[in-house]
């Protein structure tokens, strides 16, 4: 009793520690974002005209389609490539494992801009990749790989792959190897063993990685702007143009609402898909 009486004022005071951060976040985050979203309905006049413009004008609709298409392809590539890599890291031991994790973390910690620049150099007309595939006789003449979809996909997969591999690895490293061994000794063929035993066990990692990569991909700006062509414009680039070049805050707000909605739906949808597997 004495304890709680002595501690109560201290606890009340400690709650106040949250206040400075909350004030900053309200002024420089919640309020600005809220008013940007509100402008979708109020700028230049109240109404749904901005949302109507997004649906009706092909520029916006194409950007929406590109955004979902590019982010979806990037997520799929990251999953197909990241799954075996994460498995290899989880199976590796000691020094090899640390080395592999380090090589996944290196791009994580180097600037997106610098890496995008690196891809400009690697994929350019007389770049490393083109010289290699021409030299090996895979193609006759260099192919264009920057300022089109190939460039965007290469750059985005490079940046987002660690966000797929790390959640997968975090789950796989805790999977007990005796389950798959038991299934194998009971006669399960490798493929069946994988699909019926290992994949369900690693499912939480698949869901986390997929959500993370897809959601981050939706808001991408730097990579499609530098490595993509006119046919690869994504929502984020349109928001930038509407605000910086055209000053049309209403349309920018509506695009922001759509983008945020996409993020929210992805979280809700994929975490619902992910839950049954985690419950078992």
């Amino acid at each position, binding site marked *: 009793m004495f304890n709680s009486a002595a501690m109560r004022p201290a606890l009340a005071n400690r709650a106040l520690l949250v206040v400075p951060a909350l004030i900053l976040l309200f002024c420089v985050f919640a309020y600005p974002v809220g008013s940007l979203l509100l402008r979708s309905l109020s700028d230049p006049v109240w109404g749904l005209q901005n949302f109507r413009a997004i649906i009706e004008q092909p520029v916006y609709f194409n950007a929406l389609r590109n955004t979902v298409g590019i982010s979806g392809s990037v997520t799929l590539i990251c999953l197909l490539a990241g799954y075996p890599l994460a498995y290899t890291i989880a199976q590796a031991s000691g020094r090899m494992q640390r080395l592999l994790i380090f090589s996944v973390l290196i791009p994580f910690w180097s600037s997106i801009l610098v890496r995008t620049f690196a891809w400009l*150099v690697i994929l350019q007309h007389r770049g490393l990749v083109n010289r290699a595939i021409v030299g090996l006789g895979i193609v006759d003449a260099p192919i264009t790989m920057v300022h089109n979809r190939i460039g965007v996909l290469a750059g985005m997969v490079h940046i987002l792959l660690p966000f797929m591999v790390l959640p997968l690895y975090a789950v796989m490293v805790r999977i007990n190897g005796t389950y798959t061994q038991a299934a194998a000794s009971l006669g399960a063929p490798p493929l069946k063993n994988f699909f019926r035993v290992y994949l369900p066990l690693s499912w939480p990692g698949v869901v986390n990685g997929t959500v993370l990569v897809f959601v981050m991909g939706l808001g991408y700006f730097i990579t499609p702007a530098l490595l993509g062509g006119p046919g690869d414009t994504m929502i*984020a680039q349109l928001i930038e143009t509407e605000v910086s070049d055209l000053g049309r805050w209403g349309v920018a707000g509506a695009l922001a609402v759509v*983008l945020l909605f996409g993020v929210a739906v992805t979280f809700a949808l994929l975490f619902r898909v992910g839950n049954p597997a985690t419950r078992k």
Partner: protein
Amino acid sequence: MMPASVRTEFLWRGLRITISALLVVFLVAPMLIVVVISFSSAQFLMFPPPSFSLQWYRKLFGDPAWIDSLTASIEIVVPTGILAMVLGTAAALGLARSEIPGKKIITGLLMAPIVVPVIIIAAAIFGAFRIWNLNGSLLGFILAHTVLTVPYVVSTVLASLQMVDERYENAALTLGAPPWAVFRRIVFPLILPGVLSGLLFAMVISFDELVVSLFIGSPTFRPVTVQMWSDVLGDVDPTIAAVGTLLFLFSLLVLLLEALMRHAGMSSPLMGQS
């Protein structure tokens, strides 16, 4: 039957290891290429370079545009890191060690800048700063970057606080120690690795930040990432590779420091008993 399944398993294993090796090359090669190009003697982007020189580093440190933007970056990063560290640590303490109502909502708000696409934050802050006249100002950059980095400090400090046994603090409080002394003498030393990790993350993220900076920067005050952006859009020469190498070294150094600190934190005598 048995040899066939062993053979397929062997094939799958070979395929998986090949894919993994190729992916490691894919992940690491671009940064290595940037580092090599930064020492190129060629006048344009060429890989591999014909021979090596320091000309791009000389150009970098001789060009006032790069010097100014590097200075601006440092002017932004240091106060941002400190402000994010102080606000984030305080908020984490408030969340973990009190019974405030709506804890989930407050945590959600503090973490929101990580979840909301940065392009939306950038456009929104740019709009608000136009009214408050903060675009292109140091104060504006510090406030905006602090918002983007506070979530990382909150999460690293919260993680540290979870490993500190609350009974140490309660014992000190019941024995009559004033709350500030409890924090300074007991809690702070224990969560220091988390606090410093948060500080370093905040600084690296602020240093690498481009999208928000692109909106709120001005031609006279812009960090090095914005300078790089306009360089990549214009005539590209290997100077940007030299900047990229320096940024990369900075991140690696910070990552190393962080790893060392976490190591030191683990061996702290009071840790891991809770």
